[in-house]
């Protein structure tokens, strides 16, 4: 079984009368990408702030890398918050160095690592520029570098792709995947479901302070299959027995759901009587479908 880098048990957090997190349990597997999903105001940011020890939970326990989460662990965690920025009047290099040293790096080590990453992302020539001279995307790149610079065991990215053009988003995605390959555990919070599908191994879905869904992404997708098939036929006139329902029809493309324990083969048999089949496949739910269904069902 895969080891967990972070375990949150029965986390409760209240702000006055408002309950932001209500007995949330999370198990974040090591060396993989964990998608933290949920609608706006679900409590994701609160949870990420608790993991970063920015705020403390009212109750519940937090285990990091096998031990109770300690203050010193912040040096082993990197956090890219959604609300992020830089000192506008400070120079890029000076600022990156400051933030790296705040994470506990020595001056020499910080300069070395920063130069390496600046070089890698081709932003070394920004070193002496002031942040206010940079575009939003450029500043985002610097924030990405300072988040990962101290080579933490656990990285938390909140909407890491926002503000990036597709080219730069791809560069960042590539870097995130490489970090996972090198053994870093990553928590990714985003509303871009296609990114989740592309790079996440596990997900948790939080709604109204409660974790409503958690597990391996493939398994969850499997669970959400609802025996719907995508069929393309030569004919536009299709009539089916009662235990097959046409959910959607677009020209000669159909979405058909099988009912009453009928199988794909049963459907195929019926379809064969209606002429030539161009394509036939099961409709696997997308993360977007799962997200919407799970939240609406709650």
């Amino acid at each position, binding site marked *: 079984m895969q080891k967990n880098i972070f375990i949150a048990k029965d986390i409760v957090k209240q*702000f*006055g009368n408002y309950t932001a997190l209500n007995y949330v349990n999370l198990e974040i597997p090591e060396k993989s990408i964990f998608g933290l999903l949920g609608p706006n105001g679900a409590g994701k940011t609160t949870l990420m*702030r608790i993991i*970063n020890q*920015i*705020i*403390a939970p*009212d109750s519940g326990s937090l285990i990091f890398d096998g031990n109770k989460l300690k203050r010193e662990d*912040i040096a082993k*965690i*990197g*956090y*890219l*918050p959604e*609300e*992020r*920025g*830089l*000192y*506008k*009047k*400070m120079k890029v290099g000076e600022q990156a160095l*400051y*933030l790296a*040293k*705040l*994470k*506990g790096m020595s001056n020499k080590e910080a300069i070395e690592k920063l130069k390496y990453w600046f070089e890698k992302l081709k932003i070394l020539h920004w070193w002496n520029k002031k942040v206010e001279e940079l575009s939003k995307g450029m500043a985002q790149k610097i*924030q990405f570098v*300072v988040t990962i610079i101290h080579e933490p065991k656990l990285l938390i990215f909140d909407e890491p792709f926002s503000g990036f053009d597709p080219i730069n988003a791809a560069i960042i995605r590539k870097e995130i995947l490489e970090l996972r390959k090198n053994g870093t555990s990553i928590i990714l919070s985003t509303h871009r479901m296609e990114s989740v599908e592309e790079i996440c191994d596990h997900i948790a879905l939080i709604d109204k302070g409660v974790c409503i869904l958690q597990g391996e992404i493939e398994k969850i997708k499997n669970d959400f299959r609802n025996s719907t098939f995508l069929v393309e036929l030569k004919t536009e006139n299709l009539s089916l027995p009662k235990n097959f329902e046409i959910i959607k029809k677009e020209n000669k493309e159909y979405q058909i759901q099988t009912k009453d324990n009928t199988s794909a083969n049963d459907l195929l048999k019926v379809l064969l009587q209606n002429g030539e089949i161009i394509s036939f496949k099961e409709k696997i739910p997308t993360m977007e479908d799962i997200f919407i269904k799970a939240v609406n069902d709650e």
Partner: protein
Amino acid sequence: MNKIWLIIKREYLVRVRKRSFIIMTILGPLLMAGIIILPIYLAIQGNDERNIALYEENTSFSSKLENTDNLHFVKIPAEEVSIIKEDFTSSPYYALLFIKDEENFSLYSNQQVSLSIKEKIEDKITSIIQKQKLELAGIDLQVLEGSTTVIEVETIIIGEGGETSGNAEVSFGIAFMCGILIYMFIFMYGTMVMRGVIEEKTSRIVEVIISSVKPFQLMMGKILGIALVGLTQFMLWIVLTVIISSFAEVLFFDTTSITSESGEMGKEQSIIVSEFLKSLAGINIPQLLSAFVFYFLGGYLLYSALFAAVGSAVDAEADTQQFILPITIPLIISFILMQPVMDNPDGILAYWASLIPFTSPIIMMVRLPFGVSNPELMISMVLLIVGFLATTSFAAKIYQTGILMYGKKASYKELWKWLTYKG
């Protein structure tokens, strides 16, 4: 601790390198030096030699009007009067003194005659008339002159270090300076802290930083860093003021001319200077200076934590008004209390105001030049430290919630709720 140090360093360096800091540091002493030098300069300017044309119709003052170093009376004939009046600019005279009779005196000039010259002329004529009247009454002028007496009461304070001479005026001046400086310092650097917090919040860097350090460390680092900026500026002001003043003294004034100037003035001045030095010796300068630095820092720390809390609660500087008011009220009250405390530095008002931490930084400094007992001073200092710790922990609670609240308009009710949140 290492991280707080990093924050202090950044906050300090960023501000000290700012152009506005450098400009303020240079302009401050120039202004201060200007305030000191200008009146002296102007006073000396007024001492240029002046020729006054004198014409009298029915009287005989001219024989009795004595010339002084810088005031020469020149008697002119009647026909010249109209010539001068017609074309004053080309006449060699500064003014024309026209005496009609013993009650009507006029001074003509093409410009506003300086107040000191007007007064000097008035003095001279007054004393001439007085002498005439006394003589008429049959009083011997020599007896009168012999009866003139000047006495000076020396004030002596019996303190722990024996007897020292005091000077209420000097104490007054020092008290006032200290009070004003601390008031200014708290305001200037308190709002600087507040602006710094708002900047971090609006630029959204705050959450990045507090994922590395505790909010309290960030707040204290900022407060201490700015305290060092304040101390640096203050020290530079003192050094530069001294340099500029002494340069200006050498450049503008021939010091020997001041001291040698017509007997009485010089004597009077040297008396004032020696009095001043004597009474300065009566004031415990090391105590005053160390107390100044203590209350300077203590007052600033107490208030700046509150300023930081206000900064954390708002999204823009424009929204700070409603929260700033309760902070500034005790400061303004201290400012208003300065006068009554100086009038009665041992009164009940002065006593309490110099113990309560919100007013003590200003009021104790105002009282100190008049002498405060050591136990009282100690209690006041301890209370200030306690007060600072209290406001800081109170402010830190608001701060750590406030900095993470975006786009929410905070109310007092909201702030109260934040105090109950668990960090």
